């Protein structure tokens, strides 16, 4: 748990105040709930304000894709892309219920057309394309529509020269689309390379849970990979592993904090710091504005182009003593005066 604390970079004081204030006992309104982890009560309104993180213990609740867009983006909002795409039923699949019925139910209960929402938005003033999965729509599973929207998001970001932000929350490939769902793993991995060609970064956020074919495709290929505290990140879920290998798994198996130890993610980031953190890394990776004719290429090339003047300027500003030392002919470490 201390690891989570260490990874929070800003406004820890504010968080502490919030946690303190919200820990006070209060009346429970009709739309309130109880945290499964610490049993503290909260109101729906307060939960939304706190980005669906328990104010008392920091437990991260599920967030819908649209709410997360609002959490990550500027108050100006976001422009949703391809909301019209809907799943087909290529296998005419029925398990305990026909697939068509499952889709209809999911759309009705979530108000979403599919398990992913793509949009243009700004994160801390950096324009980006975001592809955010929604676990409440059929467990965030990836079928043809999720694959297609993610691939389009890659193309769109590459074409605009903007970074792609992916938030994964998925049980894996959508069983009901069979082999064609499996193919979406290939489709999305291939599509990600459009961003490599356009030389723009991909930030992946792993929310609870990110498993199966989603973890084994685009979700494990981010340039920068953050995980939310407590998120389960695994190819095979704990139940499958225990049944297959008879291993007894530790309670923190595959959890974000453990996966940080395993070297599978770059940081565990508290959701209340997520937008800040993504904005910060995108600012660091941002290319300088291109100038003049033929101003193309990578930041590395730009260093070479503007390098001479910049280096001269930098040297000018060095203290005299250092200048003398690096001047050719002057004996190292000795003051010529």
């Amino acid at each position, binding site marked *: 748990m201390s690891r989570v604390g260490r990874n929070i970079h800003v406004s820890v004081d504010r968080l502490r105040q919030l946690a303190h204030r919200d820990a006070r006992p209060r009346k429970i309104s009709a739309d309130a709930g109880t945290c499964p982890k610490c049993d503290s009560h909260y109101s729906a309104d307060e939960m939304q304000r706190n980005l669906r993180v328990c104010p008392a213990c920091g437990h991260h609740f599920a967030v819908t894709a649209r709410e997360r867009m609002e959490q990550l983006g500027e108050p100006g909002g976001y422009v949703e892309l391809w909301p019209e795409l809907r799943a*087909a039923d290529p296998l005419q699949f029925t398990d305990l219920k026909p697939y068509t019925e499952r889709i209809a139910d999911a759309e009705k209960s979530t108000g979403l057309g599919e398990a992913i929402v793509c949009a243009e938005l700004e994160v801390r003033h950096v324009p980006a394309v975001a592809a955010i999965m929604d676990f409440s729509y059929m467990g965030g599973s990836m079928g043809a529509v999720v*694959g297609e929207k993610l691939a389009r998001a890659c193309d769109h970001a590459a074409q605009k020269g903007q970074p792609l932000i992916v938030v994964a929350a998925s049980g894996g490939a959508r*069983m009901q689309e069979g082999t064609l769902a*499996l193919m979406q793993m290939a489709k999305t991995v291939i599509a990600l390379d459009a961003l490599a060609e356009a030389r723009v970064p991909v930030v992946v956020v792993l929310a609870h849970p990110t498993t199966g074919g989603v973890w084994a495709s685009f979700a494990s290929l981010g340039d920068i990979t953050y995980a939310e505290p407590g998120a389960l990140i695994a190819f095979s879920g704990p139940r499958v592993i225990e049944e297959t290998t008879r291993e007894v798994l530790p309670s923190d198996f595959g959890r974000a904090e453990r996966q940080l130890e395993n070297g599978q993610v770059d940081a565990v980031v508290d959701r209340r710091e997520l937008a800040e953190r993504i904005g910060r890394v995108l600012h660091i990776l941002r290319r300088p504005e291109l100038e003049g004719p033929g101003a193309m290429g990578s930041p590395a090339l730009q260093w070479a182009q503007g390098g001479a003047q910049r280096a001269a300027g930098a040297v000018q500003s060095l203290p005299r003593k250092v200048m003398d030392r690096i001047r050719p002919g002057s004996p190292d470490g000795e003051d010529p005066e």
Partner: protein
Amino acid sequence: MSERGGGRFVRKVAEKVRRAPEAVDDDLWASVQLARHAERPYTLDYITRMCSDFEEVHGDRLFGDDHAMVAGFGRFHDRPVAFIGQQKGRDTNERTFRNFGMAGPEGYRKAMRVMEIANRLGIPVVTLIDTPGAFPGASAEERGQGGAISRSIQMMWRLDVPTLAVIIGEGSSGGALGLGVADRVLMLENSTYSVISPEGASAILWRDASKARQAAQAFKPTAANCYRWGVVDAVVPEPDGGAHTDHEQAAEILDQYIYRALTDLGAMPPVERRRARRERFRKLGPLRDPEGGMGMATGRGTPPPG
């Protein structure tokens, strides 16, 4: 090791099949069972028959050597070809040694090591897929099973050399797809290719481990269906009664298909090949027709005979 496969098994199974011809019918469940028939030729059975010489490599240079994954370079029609594939075992010891054909991250990293060498040396890559899935184990997860598979997919897609994937038995889940992103994907007549094994699906979707048969009916993971969906480009016929009845003939037929595919692909410029590879996977997965109707997969009809 494949040398000891051949004759004895074939004769034994041939007798079995003669006694019970109804075991080999169009039924999906029979198909699923044939795909993982204990006497079915495995990856090394094909490689050793198709190549005049084969140098297997070992280890991922990072952690260990995964015995569920075989990778190396073979002499195929007097040319070098990289062969990579999951390897199952026949008897109990061998099955354990091969981990039932379930590779861990080291397996996919060994595969990638061979792909990289092949790409650098301009050698085509052929993968033979036969796995119930990637290994589900805590240690595999700790060492990045997900990332190993996604990177294997990525590397296969990025290769400049001609690539060919063949599902020779059981092609289940991301563990199969990790070797499946190629210019051409072939499937043996009695093999299966699916998002999950019928047993896995049964437990998850029916919440009942005994519904595997029903799951297979729902997933329809046969070669003919995969061809119809555009997931595979050709169906490779097997000897009468199935590949397990005649390893020699099964390898001969596959040899001809691989030879033909590599010849075709070799004639394409690398840039064109990669563009086609991208398009091939990009168009998989039908979306609902906005005019209504749930839509079948955009189809190709039934596979051509032979």
